[in-house]
């Protein structure tokens, strides 16, 4: 029996996934939510194809704890692999079950049936719908299980239609986001917080806070202080003022240093994670050994829309609207923190601005839930830009040290990696305790989870730390930091951004030492045909063989990885020009994410992955000082401008014989590496520390002169 999608283990009955509402309305459910990544269209495509229904016949219910199957987080490029696979299976089993019923009803053979718009049609033209068949044999349908083998009759024909994203019009012109939801008798609230999650008010001037224009109520429990108003505009002004007139504690933060100096200076615990000996019978005699250190700083999620949530007091408890990536875990955490039963808390997903990982979405949902349940109010809480950029978790910094030897013909004999990083995951529900900012301040004895990272093979700080190449003897050591100067949690691709940047930069340095072209050097050490294919394809796309000499100011660089060493393949070439700063002219990419489900959605994810990685890798770094985070707004935290958007040329390998894989994170690491290698080619000098800013390039040039 083939392996089931884990989603089918938690929700094993077909009726948990769909309901036949009428002849022409199918209510389909998923736990995977729309984060702006276009996943709803891709999942609907899978469901429509499997069931033989039209997109216009579907009501899509995603991420409602009272209705949807629990599919965990919408994260880690798992929505197609897990959520899509679940729907492929659900659709197949439901179709098969009803084709048998339809054949009986229409007195024909299943292989004479066609399926069109939710109706089974016999050769003679008679037809019956899913809806009618479900009414006739209610019991069998209600008990239909997804985790047992079923016969899958082959039908004559299943008509399919292309699904297009249908959420953009309302998102462009109207109330398309959680920020736009309204409740009766609604209060707007903002929580008073400093510039770092560890800060708390030393004294509260409640008279002054209550006197701020527009403020109707100030709610206080322990260090949780919320300002309430009926007027959001007045609240925003009052909240900014309140922050200024409040005296804050001082956080105990280490002085900000470059990541490569800071992380190894903080306390860490070391684990040897991989130690393997070469299986090659040919002895490899090291002729030349290289050791290099690379790093990336803390990076902000920096959503364009600050986190928002609404909560309503209802008879059964509280109903919360959230743009969280994990509504079920959030429900459990809110219930635990507020000492409620799970069934007293309902969390419904509503679309927010892009999050790219664990940002403030869950925290603000707690803020709203806490205010609503404690004071019995209907409330909407939206964070400020400063809150979003200083309090929500950041992507963790990493330092990656690699040492390897090559023999006299340029073959890698051995490879040692050491990674210093705090955890890359602190989502609510990860570890024991509560991972919600407001709960820590509202309840004195609220236990926050002990930090732990994601183990390999998925990996957090070690995601993609294992080189894809045949490197002989291999050892990998993790130096795990259990503290961090800023709050950290999952950011798109986790440790893969730093690790792929380091490995692929180092591979270029080795190829240079061996005097072998970087593409040829990679292919010499790579046996996986799909990895070889994307590298060869992208080299052809970009005319790699014409890239020319190093040090001309123009450079071409390659980066490649298989995401998590088990998901999609991406090879990418960047063309940069380096003068006072790095200008990216063009990026070519070739991606193999298995069988393509939704081509435009896939392209959109890869384009976005590349452009966001350009932004991170050239510009971004979270900053702090003795008072807290000081990259708290767009003036102090720059991201990619339209002026600096490179041309993109993306090729997709439609590997129909392979399972479909997620692609939201495939390009991140390869893009960082391609940029690093292109800059090194342009300058003839290597910058090993992200971001590749003017300051960092000057540092590299100075060091090369020493």
């Amino acid at each position, binding site marked *: 029996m083939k392996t089931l999608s884990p989603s089918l283990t938690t929700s094993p009955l077909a009726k948990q996934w769909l309901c036949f509402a009428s002849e022409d309305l199918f209510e389909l459910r998923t736990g995977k939510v729309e*984060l*702006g*990544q*276009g996943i709803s269209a891709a999942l609907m495509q899978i469901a429509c194809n499997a069931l033989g229904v039209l997109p216009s016949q579907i009501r899509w219910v995603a991420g409602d704890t009272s209705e949807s199957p629990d599919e965990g987080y919408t994260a880690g490029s798992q929505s197609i692999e897990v959520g899509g696979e679940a729907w492929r299976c659900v659709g197949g089993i439901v179709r098969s079950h009803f084709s048998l019923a339809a054949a009986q009803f229409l007195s024909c053979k299943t292989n004479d049936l066609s399926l069109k718009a939710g109706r089974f049609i016999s050769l003679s033209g008679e037809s019956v719908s899913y809806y009618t068949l479900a009414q006739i044999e209610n019991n069998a349908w209600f008990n239909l299980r997804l985790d047992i083998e079923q016969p899958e009759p082959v039908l004559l024909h299943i008509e399919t239609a292309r699904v*297009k*994203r249908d*959420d*953009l*019009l309302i*998102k*462009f*012109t*109207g*109330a*398309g*986001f959680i*920020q*736009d939801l309204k409740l009766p008798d609604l209060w707007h609230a903002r929580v008073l917080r400093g510039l770092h999650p560890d800060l708390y008010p030393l004294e509260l001037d409640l008279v002054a806070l209550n006197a701020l224009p527009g403020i109707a109520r100030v709610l206080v429990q322990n260090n949780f202080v919320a300002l309430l108003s009926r*007027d*959001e*505009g*007045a609240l*925003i002004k009052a909240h900014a003022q309140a922050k200024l007139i409040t005296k804050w504690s001082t956080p105990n933060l280490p002085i900000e240093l470059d990541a490569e100096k800071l992380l190894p200076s903080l306390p860490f615990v070391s684990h040897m994670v991989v130690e393997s000996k070469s299986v090659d019978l040919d002895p490899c005699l090291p002729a030349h050994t290289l050791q290099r250190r690379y790093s990336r700083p803390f990076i902000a999620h*920096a*959503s*364009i*829309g*600050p986190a928002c949530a609404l909560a309503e007091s209802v008879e059964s408890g509280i109903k919360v609207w959230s743009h969280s990536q994990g509504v079920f875990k959030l429900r459990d955490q809110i219930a635990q923190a507020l000492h409620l039963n799970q069934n007293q808390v309902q969390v419904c997903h509503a*679309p*927010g*601005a*892009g999050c*790219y990982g664990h940002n403030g979405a869950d925290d603000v949902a707690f803020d709203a839930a806490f205010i609503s349940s404690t004071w019995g109010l209907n409330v909407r809480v*939206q964070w*400020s*830009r400063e809150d979003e950029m200083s309090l929500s978790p950041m992507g963790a910094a990493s330092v990656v040290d690699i040492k390897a030897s090559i023999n006299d013909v340029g073959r890698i004999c051995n490879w040692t990696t050491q990674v210093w990083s705090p955890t890359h995951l602190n989502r609510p529900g990860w570890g024991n305790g509560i991972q919600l900012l407001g709960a820590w301040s509202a309840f004195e004895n609220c236990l926050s989870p002990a930090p732990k990272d994601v183990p390999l093979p998925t990996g957090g700080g070690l995601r993609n730390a294992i080189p894809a190449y045949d490197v002989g003897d291999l050892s990998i050591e993790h130096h795990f930091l259990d503290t961090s100067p800023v709050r950290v949690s999952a950011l798109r691709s986790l440790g893969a951004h730093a690790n792929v940047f380091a490995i692929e930069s180092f591979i270029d340095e080795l190829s240079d030492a061996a005097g072998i072209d970087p593409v040829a050097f990679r292919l010499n050490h790579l046996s996986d045909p799909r990895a070889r294919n994307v590298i060869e394809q992208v080299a052809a796309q970009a005319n790699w063989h014409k890239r020319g000499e190093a040090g001309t100011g123009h450079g071409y660089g390659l980066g490649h990885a298989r995401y998590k060493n088990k998901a999609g393949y991406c090879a990418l070439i960047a063309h940069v020009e380096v003068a006072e700063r790095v200008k990216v002219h063009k990026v070519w990419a070739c991606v193999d994410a298995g069988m393509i489900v939704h081509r*435009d959605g896939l392209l*959109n*994810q890869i*384009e*976005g*992955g*590349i*452009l*966001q990685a350009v*932004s991170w890798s050239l510009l971004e770094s979270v900053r702090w000082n003795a008072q807290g985070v000081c990259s708290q*707004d*767009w*003036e102090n935290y720059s*991201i*990619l*401008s*339209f*002026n600096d*958007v490179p*041309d*993109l040329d993306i090729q997709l390998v439609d590997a129909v014989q392979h399972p479909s894989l997620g692609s939201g994170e495939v390009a991140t690491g390869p893009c960082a590496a391609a940029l690093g290698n292109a800059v090194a080619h342009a300058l003839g000098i290597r910058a090993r520390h992200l971001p590749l800013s003017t300051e960092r390039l000057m540092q590299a040039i100075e060091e090369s002169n020493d």
Partner: protein
Amino acid sequence: MTDIKHNHRKVKLNADPNAFLLHVLREQCDDASVRYGCGSQHCGACTVLIDGQAENACGVPVWSVEGRNVQTAQGLPDDAVGRVVLQAFIEEQAAQCGFCGSGILMRVTALLKQQPSANEALIRETLSRHLCRCGAHARILRAVRLAQKNLKNENVIS
């Protein structure tokens, strides 16, 4: 009371004259298309047209728009140029999360009304007043080019 036109319709606003237009449009005009992104005029998510000029509504006090026409993305389907721009953005699927979209649509509509044949450099320079975090920039640029082409073909502007 402040009298303004909201997408060409006369409305009376009962708001503190120093309140910012962003919140007044959202709360009093039932117009959710104007988005709060930063409140400090950096990101462009709240861009509206005031008598045809693109402005960040988060920094515009209500008193300053007395008697003026405020156009928002809510009114795009009824605007000759805006409709074509909107259609091009949907055709090109020029978004991921779409939160920056309504502000960008307004800026592009203003640009193409004033300079229908704006070249690539001018388009990029104009859009550099907007931040997009998802990396939909390349699609957005393609959508602007498509809108230019369609406007020309439909003779909406010559």
